């Protein structure tokens, strides 16, 4: 294969890394861990991935990909198709609209942005799931999950930052 061909393959690989990291986070979030109550209050890892990549590489986060990731998660957890897809699409739209504000700011502002997104996404998921199942589902564990999601965000953001540096690179200026 010539240089141009290799470059094209490398470029394609770089473009799929964000999507793959989010898919990996979806799988990671649902591993069977030997801790009581963990599964109920597990942090929303995929939401962290979506938030991070939409802020730093929105060009690699098309809506259709977000939609597909949401459907994949719904299939995996046995939720109605479209539930996670809808929540992720709305989160994507909101983050995209605030991206210019978040870019280039200190980490605590970036984190604070996520601390706004995570409760809204958690609450929306709770409302949709409760409506779908026809009962008020437990909300205390959802609150615990939201808190854990916000607390765990810096660790996942750090991993994503390094995966971006090594594998993806910065966005080209518009």
């Amino acid at each position, binding site marked *: 294969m010539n240089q141009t061909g290799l470059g094209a393959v490398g470029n394609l690989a770089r473009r799929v890394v964000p999507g793959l990291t989010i898919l990996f986070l979806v*799988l990671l979030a649902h591993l069977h*861990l030997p801790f009581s109550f963990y599964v109920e209050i597990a942090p929303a890892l995929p939401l962290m991935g979506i938030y991070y990549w939409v802020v730093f590489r929105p060009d690699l986060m098309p*809506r259709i990909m977000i939609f597909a990731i949401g459907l*994949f998660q719904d299939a995996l*957890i046995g939720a109605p198709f479209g539930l996670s897809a809808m929540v992720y699409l709305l989160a994507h739209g909101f983050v995209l609209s605030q991206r210019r504000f978040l870019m280039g700011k200190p980490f605590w502002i970036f984190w604070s942005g996520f601390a706004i997104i995570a409760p809204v996404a958690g609450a929306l998921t709770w409302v949709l799931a409760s409506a779908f199942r026809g009962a008020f589902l437990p909300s205390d564990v959802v609150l615990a999950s939201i808190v854990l999601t916000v607390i765990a965000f810096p660790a996942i953001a750090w991993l994503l930052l390094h995966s971006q540096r090594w594998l993806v690179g910065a966005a080209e200026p518009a």
Partner: protein
Amino acid sequence: MAKRNASMSVAGLAVPVRIWAQRFAFLALLALAFALMLLSKAETGALQQARVLIVDGVAPVLSALSRPVEAGQEVSRSVKNFFIVHAENKRLRQENDRLLRWMQTARQLEVENATLRAQLEYVPESAPRAVTARVIADTGGAFYHSLLINAGARHFVQRGQAVVSQAGVVGRVAEVGDRSARVLLLTDLNSRIPAIVESTGDRVIVTGNNTNWPSVAYLASNSPVSVGDRVVTSGHGGVFPPGLPIGVVSEASESRIVLQPTVEIARLSEARILDYGVEGILPPPEQVPAVGAKVSTVGTTQ
């Protein structure tokens, strides 16, 4: 000059058109997500089939990812055992003495049972076929209580079969792929298990409520159920065999009775799927094992 103006006006139009197209795409995807949710409510076969295919496709990845977790658990257990080996040895010796006495009693009862059955010309129930499978994912959470296991139609797992562990009832098979299956836990909102309270003989229904403590429904108001009573499967409904432990009453008040399940789901690494050859309360399985499919390699026992 006129040509240049025309190309500029086209370029000027392209940006708003692109913005409108993006907004339309966003709204169209949201509408599609909503429509899919409504279709999921109707439980259409195509969507269920799609879900099963996706889970089946990703099952080997989940299985591989769960290996390091299991290895870590094993290391942790080994380290813990190393420090308690003497105390554990003493406890096991005492337990062995007690079990030997029980074995003696059991043998006497076995002989007595056989004699009585012979006198009554009793037709014994056939032993259930069982498949042992690894738990590869916790697909539940606050909204859905389910597990994925690495056994499916190719291991003769069918929808509706009972899933148990050494400690008692885990749930029942809700979806079956070729090499994976989803287990609806007894704590899920949709779970209903016919049961009896062992001490009183009252028939009840153990109902999941999406918490870790399922409740007991349809219990007579004057029933003397108290904290610590065991609740076991009654065998009604044809899914679970009678006598399997479900839980112990942890709260008993006028308004509600709550169980502490005997199975600790978080510690569950393997589960047994029992096949009693009964259809159960679920509709017939959508997927049946292919003719000539191999016998389970994940650990089929009799």
